[in-house]
């Protein structure tokens, strides 16, 4: 019997569906997201793609996977239900005080998001745990009862509990929960010691608050999904994509929605890792450029990098620091304000600047003909001849070439240069700024970016990737098949995975392994349960171990992968050597005489890689150019052949410059590069030397 697997990715604009069978066939489709009820779009997209394959939902006997923007939407639209926060008495303003930092030194007008939970929904309770874990004051049941009645009076249905030093000893938080649960059994209670048991009260409270705020919507959403799938004959639990680039069962996911925030983008990065491994590439940089921003993610050893904290809902010009911090593991991506709609301007020094301001999709670039008059990146692409105004979105949306020309000409006049040169200027400045961001990101992670192959997707990614690759000394760019539904596909090739962390501050010179034992055991237990729930056999579970370490006296940790369960080796010298090595690689120095301390222990529980794939059907005969047009590149017009991607045959080789058009994007290959078509449908551009 054929086995079918279904993936649905609900993004901000589109809901994408991918269906694949174990005999290598694949179907894709997309529909507009339905924000009033996201599940409506889920089942619409599912029906569309199932129809194409001629099967019903109950025939999906392999997995159903799902990436969704539901949690992010709740946060950005602030549509959660009244949420309460319980803190240690005397520390109720933790969400207002933040870390006291101004994220932009020079701008006196900066803003912060209003706290998710306001002061009138915050209660303090007289309790205390000290930094060594000792209990200074226990929970008084009468005080809990008082808070319970206040919560009822204020109609609060979900609360975040974050007590000082609970990362060290969760007893008071748990005791509080147990007493409260007796009184108010229907209340959603999120404990900080469960969701993010790590030091630093503001980060932990923010994370806990986000979870509490989003749980009352996310859990019913996922339960409804499970139920509706069951009604249509799918009995296995759907798997949900988490920010860390793993999938877990919908019930586990529903308890910790804070782990789902970067669900969709994580799936995109995951695919980059999958493709890297398929092409036998260890390391690459994925480059996803859309309408307003570009995202880059580094894949190392076939895996995208994961970080321990990130930020959501940046309120002020997308600036780092202007959002809400979250301390849960997430795929490590940078996002910069450079997309097709990024606006070009001349600044007061006469320099050509592109972005971060964007014309968005409305009015959009001048060439959209919707009243936009600013020259945008897409306008430059049209003027240069890379984009065909009559073939945008497969011809469904005609662009106004004259409007693009007029908009770019305004800048050319100020720069005292030709319209072509100004357009090329926009093309190169945006390419440079993306290359600079990628360089900074790579350097920050201790990765040598020079020569890393690049994976290009997103609407504008394939247009600009080749140029950006040259700026990074890269010699290879991969343009994958199914680029427009890549994230959905990503959820199907994602292993089940849960990343866990526990604070366990100790110096290597006087480490007590008995204290480490329960932390690791707890994480192994939690990880195993999640994998079993995701449908895995316990024996298939694999674990990786890491420790966040630093030199004593430093405040920022470096995550250090370990060879195996540290409890077995109990070898602090090995930890020391591993840290020193990684530190040397990151920062170019090692301080052998300094003592080292472990801040947290990490366990990653995962199943094996999902072995699903799609055989792409390619043309039998080598495709011919459907037309030729002049593209202005490096100060001259070059006649460039234009191909339709669907006409290319396996192994077909073409020298740049070339344009390859498909419905959702255009691939532009520079002179000096050569393109080959591979059996998985991807196009590989290699630089010729």
């Amino acid at each position, binding site marked *: 019997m054929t086995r079918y697997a279904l993936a649905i990715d609900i993004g901000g604009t589109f809901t994408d569906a991918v269906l694949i069978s174990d005999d290598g066939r694949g179907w894709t489709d997309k529909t507009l997201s339905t924000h009033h009820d996201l599940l409506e779009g889920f089942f619409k997209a599912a029906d569309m793609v199932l129809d194409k394959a001629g099967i019903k939902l109950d025939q999906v006997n392999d997995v159903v996977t799902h990436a969704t923007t539901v949690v992010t939407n709740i946060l950005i639209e602030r549509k959660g239900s009244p949420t309460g926060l319980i803190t240690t008495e*005397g520390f109720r303003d933790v969400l207002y005080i933040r870390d006291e930092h101004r994220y932009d030194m020079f701008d*006196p007008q900066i803003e912060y998001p209003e706290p998710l939970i306001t002061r009138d929904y915050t209660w303090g309770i007289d309790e205390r745990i000290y930094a060594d874990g000792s209990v200074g004051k226990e929970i008084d049941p009468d005080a809990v009862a008082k808070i319970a009645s206040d919560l009822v009076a204020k109609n609060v249905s979900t609360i975040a509990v974050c007590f000082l030093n609970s990362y060290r000893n969760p007893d008071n938080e748990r005791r509080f929960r147990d007493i409260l649960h007796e009184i108010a059994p229907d209340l959603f209670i999120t404990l900080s010691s469960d969701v993010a048991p790590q030091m630093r009260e503001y980060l932990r409270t923010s994370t806990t608050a986000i979870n509490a705020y989003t749980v009352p919507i996310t859990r019913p959403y996922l339960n409804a999904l499970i139920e509706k799938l069951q009604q249509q004959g799918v009995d296995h639990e759907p798997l949900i994509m988490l920010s860390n680039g793993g999938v877990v069962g919908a019930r586990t996911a529903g308890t910790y929605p804070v782990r789902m925030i970067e669900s969709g983008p994580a799936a995109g990065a995951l695919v980059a890792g999958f493709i890297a491994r398929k092409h036998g590439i260890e390391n690459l940089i994925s480059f996803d450029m859309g309408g307003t921003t570009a995202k880059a993610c580094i894949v190392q050893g076939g895996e995208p990098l994961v970080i321990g904290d990130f930020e959501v809902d940046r309120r002020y010009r997308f600036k780092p620091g202007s959002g809400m911090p979250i301390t849960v593991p997430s795929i490590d991506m940078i996002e910069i304000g450079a997309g097709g709609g990024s606006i070009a301007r001349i600044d007061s020094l006469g320099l050509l600047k592109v972005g971060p301001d964007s014309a968005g999709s409305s009015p959009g670039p001048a060439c959209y003909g919707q009243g936009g008059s600013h020259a945008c990146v897409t306008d430059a692409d049209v003027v240069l001849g890379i984009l065909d105004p009559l073939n945008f979105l497969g011809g469904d949306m005609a662009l106004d070439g004259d409007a693009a020309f007029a908009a770019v000409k305004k800048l050319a006049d100020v720069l005292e240069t030709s319209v072509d040169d100004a357009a090329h200027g926009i093309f190169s400045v945006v390419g440079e700024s993306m290359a600079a961001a990628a360089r900074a990101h790579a350097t920050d992670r201790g990765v040598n970016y020079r020569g890393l192959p690049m994976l290009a997707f997103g609407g504008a990614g394939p247009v600009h990737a080749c140029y950006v690759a040259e700026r990074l000394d890269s010699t290879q760019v991969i343009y994958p098949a199914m680029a427009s539904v890549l994230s959905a596909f990503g959820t199907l090739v994602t292993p089940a995975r849960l990343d866990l962390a526990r604070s366990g501050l100790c110096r290597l010179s006087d480490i007590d392994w008995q204290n480490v034992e329960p932390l690791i055991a707890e994480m192994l237990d939690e990880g195993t349960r999640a994998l079993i729930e995701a449908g895995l056999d316990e024996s298939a579970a694999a674990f990786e171990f890491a420790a966040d370490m630093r030199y004593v006296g430093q*405040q920022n940790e470096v995550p250090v992968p370990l060879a195996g369960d540290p409890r077995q080796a109990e070898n602090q010298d090995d930890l020391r050597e591993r840290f020193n090595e990684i530190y040397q690689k990151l*920062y170019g120095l090692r301080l052998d005489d300094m003592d080292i301390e472990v801040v947290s222990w990490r366990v990653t529980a995962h199943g094996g890689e999902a072995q699903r794939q799609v055989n792409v059907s390619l043309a039998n005969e080598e495709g011919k150019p459907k037309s030729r047009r002049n593209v202005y590149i490096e100060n001259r017009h070059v006649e460039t052949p234009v191909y339709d991607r669907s006409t290319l045959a396996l192994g077909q080789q073409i020298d740049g410059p070339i344009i390859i058009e498909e419905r959702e994007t255009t691939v532009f290959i520079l002179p000096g590069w050569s393109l080959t078509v591979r059996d998985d449908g991807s196009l590989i551009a290699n630089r010729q030397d």
Partner: protein
Amino acid sequence: MAKLDGIELEIMWGNMISIVSEQAKALQRIAFSPIVREAGDLATGLFDVNARMVAQAVTGTPGHINSLAAAAGHLIDVIPPESLYPGDVLITNDPWLSAGHFFDITLLTPIFRGEKLIGYCGSTIHHTDIGGYGVGAGARDIHEEGLWIPVMKLYERGEPNETLHSIIRRNVRTPDSIFGDLAAQVSSGKMGGERLNAMCDRYGLDDIVDLSDEIIARSESATRDDIRKLPGGSYHGETEFDVPGGEVITLKTELIIDTERGEITIDFAGSSGPSRSGINVVTAYTHAYSTFAIRSILDPDLPNNAGSLAPIIIRAPEQCIVNAQYPSPVNARHVVGMYVPFPILKALAQVVPDKILAEGSGAVWTIQIQGRDKHGKSFTSSMFNYSGGMGARKTKAGLSATCYPTGVAAVPVEVLEASIPIAFTCKELARGTGGKGLVDGGDGQRIGFRMRTGQEWLLNAIPSRLSSQAEGMFGAGNGAAGQFLVNGESSSEAKKLVMQADDIVLMQTPGGGGYGEA
């Protein structure tokens, strides 16, 4: 090389800024010095062959940023280019030649392209200790404040200057941290040189002479043009605040906008004279906080480099708290330096009322604690800090518990409790302490703590604005003054306090001023 157009220049300039920004980011991540990693109290810059600053990282506190700009020139005045070799690294912490107190150590690495010197890469960071008095304003002259490192080579042709290394090692309390941070600075300078060379390779440049000339010329003329758009004339501003020990300081400024030359001159004549405690400010630091205030009202496109700094001129009489003279103590110069923007903003209120903000709480309150733990082991905390309320903006309330003009983050309660035997009793906003107005000033906060050691301990705290309030702007109310209470009693001393085992400290940081009559 042909004249650069606005496209090529943008690309190469962007490259240089990303070189220094990457360095700053790496330094901040790995610093031992808490003030560096939490507050970004560092600066990195790229200089041309004439030691003019061409690019600077957009991080850090205002105090360092513009001090470093001048420091490079001072260093090569002492050790001229002809005596520099690949592998050399210059060092100094001279307050007058770099950033105003011994804690700030500046390193400058010459960058060679082959045999040819093409520029310099510099960094200043605030180190954890420099011997002498330690944190605080209590030293009587500069020599009590710690180790003075004249301009020297820390490395010569790649080899460490062992003499200097051992002098530093013997004269600081936390040598491991100092050498950890110096090593990071050295490695960052080396990396900066490699990156600049890689950039030259990429664009086929032999040096950066034309590039830096163009950058500096454009920056200067754009800054002058922007100043010419302001109404010319002379404007006055004045601010008053109290410092530890109760001394009240006045800063007066005359702000002259010269629309013909496109220049702004700030004259501090009439301000308080030198102080006997270590709060005197060298002019480089005064300049840094003055240009910071000016910059906030100019076009945000303007960069920060030798060209854009040139049209802003600072004058201060010799007998003045913001023009420290040898041998005045300068250790806690931030206490006065962080008030420097306020009289300037008040003068600018008459020029660009929409762009400025009301007076705020001013300097962050810094604290350091020393003692012995339960087992008798001695400890010294790192310096930690808390902020009061920011002044109101025309359309936005002042931010509560957020500092201005500096941007220092607070060390989390849990991090402090894990590193020293301290227990906090509260840390909450002091609601209503921001000045009332059409738009309210930011609130201060209330922070309480005690020690869990069961024995005597030493408290070194630097509060300010315990009596002089942050003034409201355009008829708005003032922010409330701060309170510093030991066991409920007010206390304000410039020196370290000897505390008893059970003493409880309660601080309430000042509120910011409001904006506009309610």
